[in-house]
């Protein structure tokens, strides 16, 4: 749990969200989540233009071990997806907080971000799971 960026917001379901300051967020899964899943082999992403509701599943990451639904932390419209993951799902393992991002959402209600955890809050959730 050493590399948990403090500028991000976190969901209990192991997604992170970065507020880009222009009404959009970038979404990915945490390093803890990729470590628990093991090597990813497929990532299914939403389409640009899809509208999504906070807390509903809109992507799937599938590893050698399990398939896991990804929930968007905020409602709005998908404005970008990480197309590099189609050929290189391992980017999520190598760089969960960086090159392994999943999609970007143009938020319809930025106050939804207030429902998310900060780094300390998420760290407690992740640590509890490991025991």
């Amino acid at each position: 749990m050493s590399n948990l960026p403090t500028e991000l917001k976190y969901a209990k379901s192991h997604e992170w969200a970065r507020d880009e300051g222009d009404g959009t967020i970038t979404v990915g899964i945490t390093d803890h989540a990729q470590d628990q899943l093991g090597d990813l082999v497929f990532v299914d992403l939403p389409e640009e233009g899809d509208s999504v509701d906070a807390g509903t599943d809109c992507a799937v990451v599938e590893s050698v071990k399990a398939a896991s639904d990804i929930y968007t932390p905020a409602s709005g419209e998908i404005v970008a997806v990480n197309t590099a993951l189609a050929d290189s799902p391992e980017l999520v393992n190598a760089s969960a907080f960086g090159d392994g991002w999943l999609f970007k959402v143009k938020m319809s209600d930025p106050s939804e971000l207030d429902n998310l955890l900060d780094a300390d809050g998420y760290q407690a959730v992740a640590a509890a799971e490991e025991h």
Partner: protein
Amino acid sequence: MGLKTALFDSHNRMGAKMVPFGGWDMPLHYGSQLQEHHAVRQSAGMFDVSHMLALDIVGDGSEGFLRHLLANDVARLQQPGKALYSCMLNPDGGVIDDLIVYRMQAGRYRMVVNAGTAEKDLGWMEQQAHAYTVEISARRDLAMIAVQGPQARALAAPLLPNALQQSALELKPFVAIEDGEWLVARTGYTGEDGFEISLPTEDAAVFWTALAEAGVAPCGLGARDTLRLEAGMNLYGSDMDETISPLESGLAWTIAWEPEEREFIGRQAVEVRRNKDDNLRFVGLLLEGRGVLRDHLKIFSGDDELGEITSGGFAPTLDRSIALARIRSGHDDNCEVEMRGRRVAVRVVKPPFVRSGKAKVQ
């Protein structure tokens, strides 16, 4: 905390993610199980398999004992060091365990059984051994390391004790040689060439480090499972267990029916089911699209439920998902699997999926 093999500290030093397995703490991977898988298919990898139990079976009655205990026939092992894969059945014809037995000399055999079943196996064998002049000893003083891949023998042989270096390279498949407490067998569980090496626990860490320095990649249970699945090799507890016959587990070939007068345990139960049309088929499945087939998913042909996946996963060599499955016979090879709430197309194929680095299915 589980039991620790002699290589526990070596695994931690090499960055292994350790997980509980069969009562032991074992490496799952050392970073990427996919890279470990490819190392074995393309070059060489090594596995700590010390959690498996080696047994010595010694005495004048050992051949008679093993011919009664095992569904395959150790009388076929004429040449010293020759190995045999066999099931050990219960009287109902279910599989207590699958194992390898080596005939090292007349009246002396080495057996290797699964970790999770070791105590059960030992209890069963001791119970069956009463009528025979035989001594069974568990060799917890030995470590076991499998070195697998096209480069495995060339990289490992120079690191063996002097007396074994040349003879190990001359070994035929499925034969073992020994020197003192070291035993080198040309066997494996990956579908690649290589060795399985038993050695004194006190030598294990030095040998493991020497293999790593020679370029052999440390590999964990994750890669071990995807390699054996691609090779179409059964996993005890998933593909068969005490409730399932070898006839319905793709293991009919391991039953030695001849000579007819050999009364091995479970013979009567499996013999009445031999060649029956309504036996379940044990088959391979190829997923036609994206996704990963998982254990216990149901297989359908239209509305007919045909059976279920016994072990499924991702095949890194094929870059698609494969599975082993038990299904009713009498259907064509195009079926469906229910996966995450929807039906996906799968095709029935004959395992293995991969052998010696090459795809065997299209």
